[in-house]
């Protein structure tokens, strides 16, 4: 299967959007594009498993390597393993759901859907790239549209948030770029597979690992560079929040794993305690900070800081179980948080408030939306049957394998965060969904429309499938994580 199709299709649809007239045509085009993309991703999964079942054990499959800019050794080199496929599937789910919840975006809809599609091009490109320069190129393609999405279609202090997000992510990109150049000048190539077979000297790794890891870390809310998350999410329009938390934050986690840790394993060992320290702080600190939030989007944003901490914790533990957990947590958090933001968007578009204190008794008037809210909440607090549980437990099991005292303490503290999570999630459910109707004006509000229902069901399906048959996901990603851990 030609992987370039994954970039080509959304690009064609993105470019076709400006030629449409009216919201109806635009959204239909975007919808069809997203559906085709999802089917394409399933086809990819199907062909991939056939290849593996036939005994193909190569690291990457469906590779394609073309020269892009010969003088600097830049190639358009793409290929996928199980980890990338999991991330690509996640992207396809979130994109389709995001388009469905933006069904009635009337303001500058051409530009809006164009930017959404462009963003997805960046994400798909990023996950299939095996050339560091190409990878960086797509990372930037995924960053820029966000600035516009928040700045134009956002709410609240949107200019400030858009600027903050763009600056912090750009700073992250700059750090990443320094890291990549460092690797390039010491190996003479941008090719990820080639670099992984060479041995970078420990000094070089020690110098450039922090650039790459912190740079990608900023994307995935590494403490203390997480402050773009709350402001960015709260100002963003619903679909942009979903893309931001569901996809963009995963670009960072994927980069930390695939680029920083995989290419510089010695440095990963050297800095492991620092990574554990920062991620444990993020987990606990994010959870406690969430307890005090009053705005639903802030609640979910801070809880994302906490949940993404598990991704970095899993990576920092440097063994296969924990890294499997980290990848599962990326997929799980992507789906779950997209679902949460979608629900918050549905509530906000009806009640025009996101303040917990002004909501209440939603179960009475909108049972569907409320049930989805409860499901998202239960997934977030790690209930078995949903994806969050398997991901977190895999991280914990992996973390416990490191028997030094410091790692033990970090693991126990991270485990303790599940109690704090239960507190803030149940408080939010108690106040928003349960109770008496806070405002009589809400009585006339309608429950979810078909497009919103479809979006929610799509994401819930993903969450539940991973939660009930997690071995499918773990079988998919294990070969990939095995390649990474054998180098550690």
């Amino acid at each position: 299967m030609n992987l370039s199709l994954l970039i080509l299709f959304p690009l064609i649809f993105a470019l076709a959007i400006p030629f449409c007239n009216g919201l109806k045509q635009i959204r239909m085009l975007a919808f069809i594009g997203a559906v085709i993309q999802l089917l394409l991703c399933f086809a990819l999964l199907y062909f991939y498993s056939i290849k593996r079942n036939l005994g193909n054990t190569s690291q990457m499959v469906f590779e394609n390597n073309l020269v892009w800019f010969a003088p600097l050794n830049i190639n358009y080199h793409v290929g996928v393993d199980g980890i990338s496929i999991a991330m690509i599937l996640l992207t396809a789910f979130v994109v389709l759901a995001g388009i469905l919840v933006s069904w009635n975006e009337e303001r500058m809809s051409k530009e809006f859907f164009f930017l959404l599609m462009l963003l997805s091009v960046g994400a798909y490109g990023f996950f299939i790239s095996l050339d560091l320069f190409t990878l960086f190129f797509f990372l930037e393609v995924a960053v820029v549209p966000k600035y516009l999405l928040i700045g134009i279609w956002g709410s609240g202090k949107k200019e400030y948030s858009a600027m903050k997000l763009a600056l912090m992510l750009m700073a992250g990109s700059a750090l990443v770029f320094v890291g990549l150049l460092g690797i390039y000048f010491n190996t003479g190539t941008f090719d990820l597979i080639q670099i992984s077979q060479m041995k970078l000297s420990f000094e070089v790794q020690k110098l450039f690992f922090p650039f790459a890891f912190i740079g990608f870390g900023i994307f995935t809310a590494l403490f203390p560079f997480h402050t773009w998350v709350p402001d960015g999410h709260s100002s963003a329009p619903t679909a942009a929040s979903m893309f931001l938390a569901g996809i963009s934050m995963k670009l960072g986690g994927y980069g930390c794993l695939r680029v920083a840790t995989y290419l510089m394993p010695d440095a990963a060992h050297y800095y492991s305690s620092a990574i554990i320290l920062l991620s444990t702080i993020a987990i606990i600190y994010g959870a406690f900070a969430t307890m005090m939030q009053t705005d639903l989007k802030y609640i979910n944003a801070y809880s994302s800081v906490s949940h993404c901490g598990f991704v970095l914790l899993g990576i920092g533990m440097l063994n296969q179980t924990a890294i499997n957990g980290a990848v599962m947590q990326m997929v799980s958090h992507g789906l779950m948080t997209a679902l949460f933001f979608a629900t918050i968007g549905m509530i906000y578009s009806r009640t025009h408030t996101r303040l917990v204190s002004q909501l209440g008794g939603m179960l009475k008037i909108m049972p569907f939306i409320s049930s989805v809210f409860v499901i998202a909440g239960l997934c977030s607090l790690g209930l078995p049957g949903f994806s969050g549980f398997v991901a977190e437990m895999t991280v914990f099991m992996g973390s416990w394998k490191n028997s030094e005292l410091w790692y033990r303490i970090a693991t126990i503290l991270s485990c303790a965060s599940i109690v704090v999570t239960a507190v803030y999630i149940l408080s939010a459910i108690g106040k928003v969904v349960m109770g008496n109707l806070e405002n009589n004006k809400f009585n006339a509000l309608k429950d979810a429309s078909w497009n919103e229902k479809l979006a929610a069901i799509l994401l819930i399906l993903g969450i539940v499938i991973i939660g009930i048959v997690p071995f499918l996901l773990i079988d998919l990603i294990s070969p990939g994580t095995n390649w990474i851990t054998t180098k550690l």
Partner: protein
Amino acid sequence: MSNNNYIALIPLLPFASFVLLGLFGKKYFNKLSGIIGTTSLLASCVLSLYAAYTYFFVFGKVNAVYQKFEVLKFSWLQFSTTTSIDMGLLLDPISMMMVVVVTFVSLMVHIFSLGYMKGEERFATYYAFLSLFTFSMLGLVLSTNIFQIYIFWELVGVSSYLLIGFYFTKASAIAASKKAFVVTRFADLGFLIGILILGFHAETLDFNTLISTLTNPQSAQFLSITSASFFGITALTWALVLVFIGGAGKSAMFPLHIWLPDAMEGPTPVSALIHAATMVVAGVFLVARLFPVFALDVTALDAVTYTGLISAVIAAIIACTQTDIKRVLAYSTMSQIGFMMFALGISKIGGEEGLGYMASMFHLFTHAFFKSLLFLGAGAVIHLVHSNEMKDMGGLRKLMPITHITFLIACLAISGIPPFAGFFSKEEILLAASNSNKLVFYVALITSALTAFYMFRLYFSIFWNKESQAHSEHGEGTLTMKIPLIILGICTLAVGFVPFSELVTNNGIGFHSHIDYLFSITPVTLSLISIFVASVLYKKQNLEPEIISKSLGKFYTSAQKKFFVDEVYLFITHKFIYTLIAKPTAWFDKNIVDGLMNLMAETTAKISELIKGVQSGKVQNYALYFFAGIAALAILFIYILK
């Protein structure tokens, strides 16, 4: 061994009913959902009775020892080559016993709810949640793997949460549901870390492998877990105590019991099922499941014994002072579970040696019947008088004869009066205690007398005392409410005669136990005296109770205030966690961390403001900078970098 795959249907039928009712029930067949849920559970109950019968009497025993069978086991989540979460069904005496208890009591509650919850708007949702609970509880008792049990453990927790908060517009119900979940979650944290320790050292999560490797003193795993230590305590002790904390949370043991009385906010049939007969004994079940491992460690067993004993006493004292009938029953549940716990704690491995273990399981079994009967009876009373308070009741025996008789039977059973079920099991517990630990025995004896007192205080206050003011518009309740009461009443009379010691022991070898009548004289006499005292005080309205409670002064009021445990928790959570941790964290994030980021941005802006003068557009300035730069570079190369 015959083909036992059909046993999977026992949990899967309620699950199917949950999915069906949860997704489509409310919209398409709200009224019918009760029948659907009940029918699926009836099928499940019949299957489980059949399964238990064939296990105990047909294939379970090989060479006079009950074997453990694993059915339909598959790897669900592989962590490494040896450790994985497996899903499967474990058939052994305790799991088969629990399957019968769970499906039977659940069936009774399903039938009772047909009448009790009639006309409820969210009827289908209610039955969906009940089915979810039954499924999870069955999964829990049939688990083959310690992580599998944890999964279902969490699922029963959430079903309990959903059902306590069923009346979601009531502020007290919302608070109670949250409290129940958070407190048990906190305890589960211990359970989880215990699992991590056990899994790490034993290199397996599978119950059978875990038990067989750890009970072999020569195995590398045993040496590893007993030699590793943390703060001078071995990893084995840590693991078991932590796992027990999880069990204590679910089973409402002191000091983690605070959620149980509040959980009475849920519909009463739910209290009968979840908070009396099944979920709250999960902690006892967990200790019993891991009993061979617990038996290796004296410290862990002592923790079980004394936690159980303290809970039994404290709960019995508090129960004497409560006026809400469901809360009395809740504390009584806590007290009875305390009996089961310490009975496990004083037990040893083996047939007769393991009398405590057998007695604990026997009491769990009989308690399920009479306690769910008490709750359903209380439900019928509440249905009639629309109040939970004793002062609104009294003289109801003529209005509700069936409820009255069955309630009386259950009260006699819990008080340990022969020949009712509770007598047999409690007698075994006391006997086991007197054989192994005299302190435990005497405390248990007093607690057992207190039990008879507060139960008959409850009984007389509801059915005697003053003349009835209630006038019933719908009589005693529907037929569907009466039938479960009658069936459970008959069971309460009958189950004591089950030859339990021949079926359920911790090594699979049955023994013949007999009631020692000489030994029984003391406890039975004490209970009868307590009943007599209760009848003097509460059969007719009089001032004696008030005088006595006044004379007890501070002790009485503090018992009535549940010994202020709730206040301590509130203090810790509010003053400590909110004010000292969460608030400063949020402040720190907003002002310091984010402040630094903003400061960086502002500084950058200021610096650019300062140096923007450099880009003046004047050529002569540029020329000046140019030469200055060349001069600087020249100096650099000549003097510094030579």
